[in-house]
């Protein structure tokens, strides 16, 4: 061998080609797939759980991780099987997915879109994750869904409530089990009408990002349709902590209802501030002043303490439901962790099982086969009654819960009570509804 032919130019060229090859994401390299991204080749398959492990939603992320870990155990045949016993599809046998043992890696979204994309990317490229699940923010969900579409993996969204996730930002590789702002509004409007009447003036405080905008639009449309007037809608920055300067103008605005389109720490603080200003003790326009929190979570309700008492909102699922699926999941989760699961934990658990079931039914991990298996899939036994994964937008359609802050909670977990289970027919909308317009699913991307 001679080194005489190795010219400087040749070395640079070779180096450039090698560097470009190394710089390519693994899902674009030939060894990264067998027809699709991260095709499992050994005896295991890896799922990526992308949840907030730090930041303001860390507690919710921790609950999602608990549920995801439980789902993996049940898929691998460990534990009591949970919802595998009540799920209407019987494709899952407790022997992993397609006979491969399920393993998982985790990422920290930090509830920041860029961090969530980075952690999802790392799980796909470095750890070989074939599906990404989890999250507690619509901003994050939209960002990660876009990444998964590009990378050719399936995204099973966690808690994301913006209409946009399955509206203008929908993607063929993305699926949402959680409900959305439109559904909350459709479920809440009749209950609010019965409780507070049709002659009300509402003042909205709205978190200034995709979720807040779409929820406010949905709630305003639904309440105006039943006769309410929207007095004002004030956008509040996501980073706000003290809402007193936004609450103070409500007092003399002529409004008799305050709608808090806030979630997480924002909701805890804005509700606490509103109660401090004595809004719930006031009479305006001859009526008792009321506060509405369209999207509730158990963890938020615990953070707000007594302030949630009597306040109406909505949820995707609650551990107090008495159907067999909910009871099985609550029992599994409660015995393992000593606490009831939150609705974000539930949606992550169900999404993980739904993905695994779709792979089993499709007989393949290929994302396009999974998409085909999930589109139009009808199932039951997962806690929300008969459910449809609609093919047009990859949104689940199922019953929605209207909740109220409990007056005399018996324990720290007993903060909310179910007011009504709104039937799926009442919250269903057409795929081309204007609030969901502007996006295309496109076609599935296997990443090959």
């Amino acid at each position, binding site marked *: 061998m001679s080194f005489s032919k190795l010219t400087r130019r040749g070395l640079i060229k070779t180096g450039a080609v090698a560097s470009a090859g190394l710089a390519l994401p693994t899902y674009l390299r030939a060894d990264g797939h067998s027809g699709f991204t991260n095709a499992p080749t050994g005896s295991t398959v890896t799922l990526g759980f992308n949840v907030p492990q730090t930041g303001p939603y860390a507690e919710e992320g921790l609950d999602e991780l608990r549920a995801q870990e439980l789902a993996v155990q049940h898929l691998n045949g460990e534990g009591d099987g949970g919802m595998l016993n009540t799920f209407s599809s019987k494709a899952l046998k407790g022997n992993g997915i397609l006979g491969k043992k399920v393993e998982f890696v985790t990422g920290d979204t930090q509830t920041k879109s860029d961090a969530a994309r980075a952690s999802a990317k790392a799980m796909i490229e470095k750890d070989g994750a074939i599906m990404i699940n989890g999250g507690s923010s619509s901003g994050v969900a939209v960002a990660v869904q876009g990444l998964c579409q590009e990378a050719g993996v399936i995204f099973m969204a966690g808690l994301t409530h913006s209409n946009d996730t399955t509206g203008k930002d929908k993607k063929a590789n993305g699926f949402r089990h959680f409900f959305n702002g439109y559904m909350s509004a459709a479920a809440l409007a009749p209950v609010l009408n019965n409780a507070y009447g049709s002659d009300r003036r509402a003042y909205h405080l709205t978190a200034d990002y995709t979720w807040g905008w779409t929820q406010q639009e949905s709630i305003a449309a639904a309440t105006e349709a039943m006769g309410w007037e929207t007095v004002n809608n004030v956008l509040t920055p996501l980073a706000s902590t003290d809402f007193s300067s936004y609450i*103070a103008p409500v007092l003399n605005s002529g409004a008799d209802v305050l709608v808090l389109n806030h979630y997480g720490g924002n909701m805890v603080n804005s509700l606490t501030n509103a109660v401090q200003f004595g809004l719930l003790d006031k009479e305006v326009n001859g009526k008792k002043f009321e506060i509405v929190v369209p999207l509730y979570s158990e963890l938020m309700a615990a953070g707000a303490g007594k302030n949630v008492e009597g306040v109406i909102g909505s949820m995707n699922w609650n*551990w107090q439901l008495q159907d067999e699926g909910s009871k099985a999941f609550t029992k599994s989760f409660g015995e393992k962790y000593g606490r009831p699961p939150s609705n974000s934990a539930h949606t992550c658990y169900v999404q993980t099982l739904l993905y695994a079931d779709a792979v089993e039914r499709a007989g393949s991990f290929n994302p396009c086969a999974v998409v085909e298996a999930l589109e139009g899939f009808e199932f039951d036994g997962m806690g929300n009654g008969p459910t449809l994964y609609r093919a047009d937008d990859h949104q689940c359609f199922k019953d929605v819960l209207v909740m109220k802050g409990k007056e005399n909670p018996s*324990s720290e977990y007993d903060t909310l009570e179910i007011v009504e289970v709104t039937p799926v027919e009442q919250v269903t909308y057409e795929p081309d509804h204007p609030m969901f317009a502007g996006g295309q699913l496109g076609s599935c991307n296997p990443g090959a």
Partner: protein
Amino acid sequence: MDAIILQFLNGLDKGSAYALIALGLTLIFGTLGVVNFAHGALFMIGAFCSVTVQRILTLSTETLSETQKDFLGNPLKIKTPYVESWFGPEVGAAIIDWSVPLAILLAIPVMLIVGFVMERGLIKHFYKRPHADQILVTFGLAIVLQEVIKYFYGANPIPTPAPAAFVGSFDFGPLLGLDTSLAYPYWRLVYFAFSAVIIGAVFAFLQFTTFGMVVRAGMADRETVGLLGIDIDRRFTIMFGIAAAVAGLAGVMYAPINSPNYHMGMDFLVLSFVVVVVGGMGSLPGAVLAGFMLGILESLASMNEVKNILPGIDQIIIYVVAIVILLTRPRGLMGRKGVMEE
């Protein structure tokens, strides 16, 4: 008019928190010359003193209910706080109800100790290092402290209510001869009064005691005071503890306003630094003046009438004012010559 008065009250309340945190910050800077980015964490630790006292007072015995079930269908554990067993249900409930004001008793020694340990254990090693090093190490310390709190208390906000006697709001409308209601929460009024007392006490301590006189002399000329044989470092260490206690007390009483969470210190930190810079680095009256001024301006800027003309102004008003003041008065409102200047 009523909206302006309401936002003015709101500004006084916001300004109280800014002024208390900024007062401690500028006290540390004026005495030790340290830019302490962990000061927000001290505010947060103070708030968690309230949470801790609430938890201690609600430590309970558990008995199994014969009628109620928990979420798994097992007999529900009924909790009875020890204080209710020891002092009777009414007195016990009243003690628990007053857990936030009682937390002041815990917060003062805890915050003094935290302050001493921080100063002696870490910050004193950075006195002669560049400000960039001080910022890095204190910012790192702030992150460590908030992660420690998160480990023990979780990431979720923890409700810490004010005593029942202060729930509700006072209507200033009739008092000011207005036809409309002008309600303002009792606890926020308490917070404003409490801040005024603390600020007054700090000023009185520095103005009317020998210790305060030496500290003021040290702030003006550290070397000369040292040459007179006075151990100024020891006094400055004590001032660090006092500054930590001031931040902690601000946090204790803030707990009912917004449920404490591990991140709350960071939320106040940046604004407090702006307050210190606008007031003038090292100037105690400047910090207080700027705290109230910026709090009031921020509140007035968040009026809908203002935002309709200048959308988003409530988010930037503090920084706009800071830029204008620093352009016209580079040392801030009451800054002294020679501070942070080569």
